């Protein structure tokens, strides 16, 4: 009551912008992924991202924020896994204008001086993009309805859980067992290396194994059908990632600036790292490689953006770009069809970033004289995240397999999931086609009118 709660308009402006930027990442991802599929499945690929916005957008305000940042669901004081879904149900207590003494609900806000509702918006966008990321591993073959159900279940049980553990004061936070292992050392996850990338990467791997390969995987060519779309996606992802990383500073200050610069230089370096591997291994530096390197760099710097120096970020980026470039070939070797390399980019990139913090963090990293502690903590936290996400995703995935079923029929997959699941085809570029019957006949523009009457 005697605490002064003052609105910080500059910080609030930056968080509003950041939330908008992160929301843009999901359409950006839709283009990045969509361009990489064959042209007969680009619409389905994009719909998996857009569908995630639809489902998670609704779920988040009902129970999502509460499960992430509410008090531990199974009793105060325990280092819990999920927050209480009913504490902030429907954003109860977080809306502006309900308490006259605190019109912006600043006392309930996670960030000083920023209205609670702004933080809710910002956090919501992270949940959305994380689910959407998973879809890359199961491209071209999954029923849209099953995907939507998965989206709701997974975000509720797995994402909100991990968010609670890492950011909501739970198991993997500074207050949890790993946070108190070493003096003065807390697990570092600046903007979501574990919660977002390791989490999505593991879930992608599990689903790829449960659902099985695309027909023709490893035999037929499945090359990207539109690399300009991939580049567009990469560009929008980078742009949006400034909100993701620099926004995670929670204020418009020097830390945000550091995260901004680190994000940029690590990504630049990762692009170079990926292209070097390609040049040496394949003889060509490709544009798909550049786009992939960009994303790998963004992923790797995510947990580390506030803890490294720019030079450290360059090294982190180079390593992440090179390792991810090598990792994307694993699927052919090991025989799982992680179609668009969620494992190779997000799991590997997320691990690289999370673990290398133990070496490069300017305050506690091994290379900066900080001892082994940070490295140990980072590895342990990553392992817990892997196990948690892996086990729960497996359970959800298997339940859906035996109930709704995951895959479209073989014929539908061969004909193309866009036409068979969505009744559409993406392109009709021949200017002479329309009205020539080559593209179709308007069969029934008015048939269904009864439905609207």
């Amino acid at each position: 009551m005697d605490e002064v709660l003052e609105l910080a308009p500059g910080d609030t402006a930056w968080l509003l912008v950041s939330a908008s930027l992160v929301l843009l990442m999901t359409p950006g991802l839709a283009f990045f992924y969509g361009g990489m599929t064959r042209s007969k499945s680009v619409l389905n690929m994009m719909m998996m991202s857009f569908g995630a916005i639809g489902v998670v957008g609704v779920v988040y305000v009902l129970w999502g924020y509460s499960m992430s940042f509410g008090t531990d669901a199974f009793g105060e004081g325990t280092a819990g896994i999920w927050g209480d879904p009913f504490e902030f149900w429907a954003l109860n207590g977080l809306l502006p204008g309900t308490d006259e003494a605190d019109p912006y609900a600043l006392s309930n806000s996670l960030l000083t001086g920023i209205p609670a509702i702004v933080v809710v918006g910002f956090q919501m966008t992270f949940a959305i993009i994380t689910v959407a990321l998973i879809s890359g591993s199961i491209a071209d073959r999954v029923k849209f309805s099953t995907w939507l159900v998965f989206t709701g279940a997974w975000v509720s049980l797995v994402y909100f859980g991990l968010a609670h553990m890492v950011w909501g004061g739970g198991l993997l936070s500074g207050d949890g067992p790993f946070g108190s292992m070493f003096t003065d050392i807390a697990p570092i996850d600046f903007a979501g290396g574990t919660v977002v990338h390791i989490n999505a990467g593991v879930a992608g791997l599990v689903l790829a194994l449960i659902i099985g390969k695309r027909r023709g995987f490893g035999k037929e060519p499945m090359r990207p059908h539109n690399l300009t779309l991939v580049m567009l996606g990469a560009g929008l992802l980078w742009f949006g990632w400034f909100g993701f990383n620099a926004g995670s500073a929670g204020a418009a200050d020097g830390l945000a600036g550091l995260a901004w610069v680190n994000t940029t230089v690590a990504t630049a370096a990762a692009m170079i790292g990926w292209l070097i591997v390609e040049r040496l291994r394949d003889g060509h530096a490709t544009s798909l490689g550049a786009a992939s390197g960009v994303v790998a760099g963004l992923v790797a710097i995510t947990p580390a953006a506030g803890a490294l120096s720019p030079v450290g970020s360059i090294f982190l980026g180079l390593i992440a770009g090179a390792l991810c470039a090598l990792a994307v070939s694993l699927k052919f070797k090991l025989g799982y069809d992680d179609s668009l390399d969620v494992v190779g980019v997000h799991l590997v990139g997320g691990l690289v970033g999370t673990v290398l913090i133990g070496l490069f963090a300017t305050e506690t990293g091994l290379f900066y004289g900080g001892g082994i502690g940070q490295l140990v903590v980072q590895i342990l936290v990553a392992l817990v995240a892997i196990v948690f996400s892996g086990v729960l995703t497996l359970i959800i995935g298997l339940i859906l397999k035996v109930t709704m079923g995951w895959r479209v029929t073989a014929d539908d997959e061969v004909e193309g999931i866009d036409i068979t699941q969505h009744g559409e085809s993406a392109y009709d570029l021949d200017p002479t086609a329309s009205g020539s019957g080559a593209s179709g006949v308007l069969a029934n523009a008015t048939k269904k009118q009864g439905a609207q009457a």
Partner: protein
Amino acid sequence: MKLVTAVIKPFKLDEVRAALLAFGVQGMTVSESSGYGRQRGHTEVYRGAEYTVELLPKIRIEILVDAEDADDVIDVIVRAARTGKIGDGKVWAVPVENVVRVRTGERGPEAL
């Protein structure tokens, strides 16, 4: 000399080409086309308006062959392209005069 033309389902192209190579055909020319026939098209819906796509994607292959090989080549194609479902396509032959290889100016069977 004959020109054998085949209209087949797109995803059968690989198999047909492999079968032709195995038989000894050295080259072919392939183009995209659309077919209309007994096979039914599919329906697309945009903002509630339905479109029936009647023309279905097909691949058209042209192969110049020695006259005596024409029947065998047709058989090879038919076997490789068959799925047994409606819409598998047609194969036919046309008599040809004067085949020339552009690079060398060779004519007739040497041009193949």
